[in-house]
């Protein structure tokens, strides 16, 4: 299991368009990828679930990777989040 903590910088938080890019990236991996924020959690592979977390600027998110290809998923997803949020 791998974990990644991050503070959202983007003014709009995790909004629809970049969320779509994130979901598409997550779908490529077999491992479970879960995002926790504001005492809720959602699969990063599900667009609506991710949007419902309502992540805003300065929110602290934790992304947990669990499964066989978690190393690769961690690399790509953390890069994606770092660049977009």
């Amino acid at each position, binding site marked *: 299991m791998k974990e*990644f*903590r*991050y*503070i*959202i*910088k983007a003014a*709009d*938080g995790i*909004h*629809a*368009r970049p*969320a*779509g890019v994130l*979901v*598409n990236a997550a779908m490529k991996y077999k491992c479970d990828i879960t995002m926790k924020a*504001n005492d809720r959690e959602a699969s990063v592979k*599900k*667009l*609506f*679930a991710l*949007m*419902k*977390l*309502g*992540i*805003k600027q300065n929110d602290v998110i934790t992304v947990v990777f669990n499964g066989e290809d978690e190393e690769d998923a961690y690399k790509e997803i953390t890069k994606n989040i*770092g660049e977009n*949020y």
Partner: protein
Amino acid sequence: MTELKGLPVSPGIAAGTVYFVATADNAGTPRKTEDTEAEIRRLTGALDRAAEELTGLYDKALNTADDSVADIFMIHGMMLQDDDFRNRMTALITKDGFSAEAAVSRAAAEFEEDLSKSGSDYIAQRGADISDLEHMVIRILTGRSAVQLPDADEKIILAADEITPSLTLMFERSQLLGLVSGKGSTTSHAAILARSLGIPAVIASGTVLDNTVSGVQCIVDGVHGNVIFSPDVQQFEDADRCRKKYELEQQELLSLRTAPAETESGQKVTLCCNAGSLDDIDRALECGAEGIGLFRSEFLYLGRSELPTEEELTDVYTKAVRKLNGRRLVVRTLDIGADKKTDCIPMKPEPNPALGIRALRLCFAEPDLFAVQLRAILRAAANGPVSVMFPMICSVSEIRRAKACLTSAADDLEKRKIPHADRLETGIMVETPAAAVISDILAEEADFFSIGSNDLTQYTLAVDRQNEDASAYCDPHHESVMRLIELTVKNAHEHGIWCGICGELGADTSVTKRFLLSGIDELSVSPQALLLLKKKIRELP
């Protein structure tokens, strides 16, 4: 005559005949079904059709608008494929015996409700995207034709209870003079599309628009947010005058992109932009900036759990240099303190972070943190003009110490045989009253000054600029601040170095005249402010 006050979401003024489009709904369709299998087949078929239409709209958006608009349809496609959403619609049919139409409406309403409870206004507004999808699927299910389109040569003001991106793109761009929507927000996707296509648009919030406005003459003022149905002659003339004035102003501002920032008597000022990311540099170049007067490094550090490496910093700075193609890039070293925290730099909580271990003081406390930045800046400078600027200087010893760190960073690169600039233009960010008062002494140690007016105001007037209750005391026009700025410029010039302003005050056109009288060499402002500032400078005697 009916006049509505709405939210201007896309600038411009237009007048024309209203073309009203009713939103598809499931009125008249059965709510319940016995044959759930047949309903599931209808639903699946309609969802497939909708996916095809969205692909078509995506392609059309790529051709007529821009990538960001096309992405809206990509997101709509993904929403339609979302398992949770599809499973809910299917369950409403199989478990509750809903008709396909009713299932779509119910599921859409539930998901909109969930988004509205997400706690983020931005996400809540995405409910509009769900209802766009809902209407599309219901239109397909009910077999109603998409939308009755006007003749191809007819120019219209498009009105609907809710204008959606897909509705907008059904019309040719040349047909659309303006948009009036009963629902929406500045960040709604239809508003983004309108701005991208350059169509004036107003959201007349709270107004129920219906067929009675169809065929009526209408003025849409996307600058002020006014909508006038059946205007009188006077209003038509006023609108026309406003439109001409607005278009002229826009043209004039845009035409200033390449014009020199020069007063009527020939005094020149270098106009640059402040940037906090690589995207900001693109925006700066679009408005004709002559360089980046303040490149904030903080974005490379904030919100991370690990420090950026020397390679990473070098890469970003080099990209910035390449984008600027010969224009100067002024990189400010890390300006971070206990008020701006990041996981990658441990910082003790401080009772008064504005007066604590921040910016250069933090860099002195963490020599490696500082050295990595300086090496990256020196390496990037091998590719084009780069200057380094040190924030929070109060004493001569501090600038000397910073310069010694810069020299040892260069020595280190030299030993490792890594390409770098031999010498960097080195500047002081004048943002403490101390630095301004001794600017004659500091000028001997620096190649330039850049005045950080925001902090200079806060430290001079002893007022926390984050504290809203004290905001009445935070007056950047205060004579003390202005005099410190003038003193700094005078001392810079007496020692033969240049002086700029990179704080918000630089963009404040009410004091531009005074700055020019002081002989300021450079103003560095946000991309949105640059052309207006240039216009102001060119109008000065």
